[in-house]
C-alpha cells in the first residue's frame, strides 16, 4: 500500500514517510508546567532546606547552625503533640467524611431528575473557601448571638448556650462538623463517579447470581469503585494532615494549645516566634511524614492492579 493509482510515482521511488513531530515542540509545550513546578515548588523547597540549616530570624542576619534545628526538633514535645493531634484529626475527619459522603453518593446515584438537584445542593459548600467557611461557623457557634445557640435554647434542649471551643473534644467535634459539612460534597462526587463506572449489566449479573443488596455492594460495587475510593482517601488524608485555617479561625489552637495542628505549629514558630529556620525544619519533617503516608497509599493502589 505504498502508492496509489492516481498519484502514480514510479515504482523505484521510495514511499513517502511522514516525519515524526519535532522533539523541540514537545519540550516547548511542557515548558510552562516546568516553570510553574520549578518556581513554585522546587525553588521554595530548596529554599526551605537551605533555611532549615540556619538560625534565621525574621529580621537580622541568618547564621549557619548545621543540624541543630533538627536535633532540637527531636525533643520538641509541643511539635510532636501537634503531629499526634493532626493524626487523630485526620483519622476522625476522614472517617466522618466517608460516613457522610458514601450514603449521599448512593442517594444521588439514582435515575431521578431530583437527584441532580440534590447533587448540586450537597456539593455547594465545597466551593466556599476554607477561611470563609470557618469564619461563618465561628459566627454560627457564637454562644451569645450565634444561630446554633439560639436554636438549641429555643428548642429547650439546653439551659445555657454551649461553648464548644472551651474544651478539647467539643472543640474538635465542631471543627470536624464544619469540615464534613464543607468537604463531604467533594468526596461524594468522587465516589459517585466510582459508583457510576460500575456497569449496569455486571450488577444485573450479580442479581441473577443470587447476590442480595449487601453482597452486591461488598463483593461487586466496592471492589469495582476501588480507584475512586483510594483517590478520595488520598486527597482527604493529605488535606487533613495539612489542616490549618479551620483551627486557626475556630479554636485558635485552644483550649490550652490542645488543637494546634502541625501546620499551625509551623506557623506559630515561624511567624509568632520569628524562628524561620526552625519552622523550615518542621516543614521538612512534615513533608517526610506526608511522603511516607502517600507512598504507603500508592503501594496499596499498586498491590493489586486495578481491573480495566
Amino acid at each position, binding site marked *: 500500500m505504498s502508492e496509489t493509482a492516481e498519484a502514480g510515482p514510479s515504482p523505484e521511488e521510495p514511499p513517502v514517510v511522514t516525519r515524526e513531530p519535532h522533539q523541540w515542540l514537545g519540550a516547548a509545550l511542557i515548558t510552562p508546567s516546568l516553570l510553574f513546578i520549578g518556581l513554585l515548588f522546587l525553588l521554595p523547597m530548596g529554599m526551605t532546606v537551605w533555611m532549615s540549616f540556619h538560625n534565621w530570624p525574621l529580621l537580622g542576619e541568618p547564621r549557619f547552625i548545621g543540624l541543630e534545628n533538627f536535633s532540637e526538633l527531636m525533643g520538641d514535645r509541643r511539635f510532636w503533640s501537634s503531629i499526634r493531634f493532626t493524626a487523630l484529626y485526620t483519622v476522625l475527619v476522614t472517617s466522618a467524611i466517608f460516613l457522610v459522603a458514601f450514603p449521599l453518593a448512593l442517594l444521588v446515584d439514582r435515575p431521578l431528575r431530583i437527584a441532580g438537584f440534590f447533587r448540586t445542593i450537597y456539593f455547594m459548600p465545597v466551593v466556599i473557601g476554607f477561611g470563609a467557611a470557618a469564619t461563618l461557623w465561628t459566627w454560627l457557634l457564637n454562644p451569645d448571638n450565634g444561630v446554633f445557640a439560639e436554636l438549641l435554647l429555643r428548642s429547650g434542649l439546653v439551659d445555657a448556650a454551649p461553648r464548644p471551643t472551651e474544651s478539647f473534644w467539643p472543640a474538635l467535634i465542631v471543627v470536624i462538623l464544619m469540615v464534613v459539612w464543607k468537604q463531604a460534597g467533594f468526596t461524594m462526587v468522587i465516589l459517585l463517579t466510582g459508583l457510576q463506572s460500575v456497569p449496569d449489566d455486571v450488577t*444485573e*449479573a450479580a442479581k*441473577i*447470581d443470587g447476590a442480595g443488596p449487601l453482597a452486591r455492594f461488598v463483593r461487586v460495587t466496592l*471492589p469495582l469503585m476501588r480507584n475512586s475510593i483510594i483517590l478520595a482517601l488520598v486527597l482527604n488524608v493529605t488535606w487533613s494532615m495539612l489542616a490549618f485555617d479551620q483551627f486557626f479561625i475556630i479554636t485558635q489552637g485552644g483550649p490550652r494549645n490542645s488543637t494546634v495542628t502541625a501546620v499551625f505549629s509551623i506557623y506559630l514558630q515561624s511567624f509568632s516566634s520569628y524562628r524561620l529556620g526552625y519552622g523550615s525544619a518542621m516543614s521538612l519533617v512534615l513533608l517526610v511524614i506526608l511522603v511516607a503516608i502517600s507512598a504507603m497509599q500508592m503501594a496499596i493502589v499498586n498491590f493489586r492492579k486495578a*481491573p480495566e
Partner: protein
Amino acid sequence: MAGLVLQNLIKQYGTTRVVHGINLEIENEEFVVFVGPSGCGKSTTLRMIAGLEHISGGRIYIGDRVVNRVSPGKRDIAMVFQNYALYPHMSVGENLAFCLQQRGTPRAEIATKVAQAAETLDITSLLDRRPSQLSGGQRQRVAMGRAIVRNPEVFLFDEPLSNLDAKLRVQMRGEIKRLHRLIPTTTVYVTHDQTEAMTMADRVVVMNHGHIEQVGRPLELYEKPATTFVAGFIGSPPMNLLPGTLSGAGDDLGLTLENGTTVALRGKVRAGVEQARSANVVLGVRPEAVGIAAQGPQGVPVPVTLDEVEPLGIETLAYGSIGRTTLCARLAPDVALQAGAPADLFIDTDRAMLFDAETTRALT
C-alpha cells in the same frame, strides 16, 4: 427442569406500552429464539423473564410456579449478557464460583462444579486469568460457564454473539447448540439476526412492535410466513413483496402489479384469493421462485430493468424494479446478466403467497 409460560405479558413505561400482552408456552428443554428488529420488545420480554424488569401485567410461570414477584436470584435462571457482564475484578474461576457461593454451596462442591463447567467449555487453562486478559470468544465462553455451573431451570441469552466477529459468531453458534444438546435445558435466546434464529432454534418467535407476529419452527416460518413482516424478516435475501390489484376470475385470474404488468395466478396461490376482502393484495414470492428465460422459464414473465447483479459464487442475485418495489431473483452462478439492461424475470406463482394489503396477514 421446567418449561416456561408467558401469560398475557405486558410491559408499560408510564403510558407507553412496549410489550402488548404476549402469550407463549415454551416446553421443557426447548430452544426458543426471539427475533425481531431493535425496539420490538424482545429484550424487554427476556428481562421480564429474568426478573430484571418489573412486569406491568400478566404472569410468568417457570415450571408450575408464578415468578412475577420472585427476585432474579431465586428464579433459578441463568443469563448470558450481550457484553458478557463478567466481574472484572475476579478471576475466571471466581466468576464461575460466585453464584454458587451466594447460594452457600460447600467449598468442595464448588470446586468440583467449576472444574466440570470449565472442562465442558474448554476453559480450564483460563481459570486463573482475569476477564481483561481474555479474547471476546473466551469471555463469551466464561459467560456461558457462569450460566451452566449452577444447573439452572432456564437459560436466557441476550444477543450473546453480537459483539463477536462474523467467523467467531458462526463458531459460537455451533457451540451453544452443542451445549444445549449436552445439557438439555429450556432456553430463551434473543437476537436480531434471523440467521441465528433459523440455525439455532427449535421454535422461533418473531416479534414486532411489542407483538408476537408468528411462532413456529424455522422452516415453517420460511415457507408459510403468517404476515408480510415475517416474510420480509426471515430469509436472506427476504421474500419479495409485490403490491398489486386482483383482476379477472377463473382462468383469467390475475394480479396487476405497480408497473401495469398483469401476472396470471396459477396453482396453489389461487386458494388465497377467495379469502381476500378487497382487491388490494401483496404477492409474496421467494427469490428462488423467480427465474430468467435462460434457466427454462417457469411462471409468468415480468419485464424489469436490472438495477444490480451480484455474483456470489454459489449463486447470483439479480435485482429489478417494479414501480417502487424491488424484485430479487436467486439465479445460477453462471448466468450472463448485466446491470442496467432490461430483462424478463419469471415469477413462479405456484410457489408464491398472497397477503392482505391492509391487515398484512397471509391469505392461504
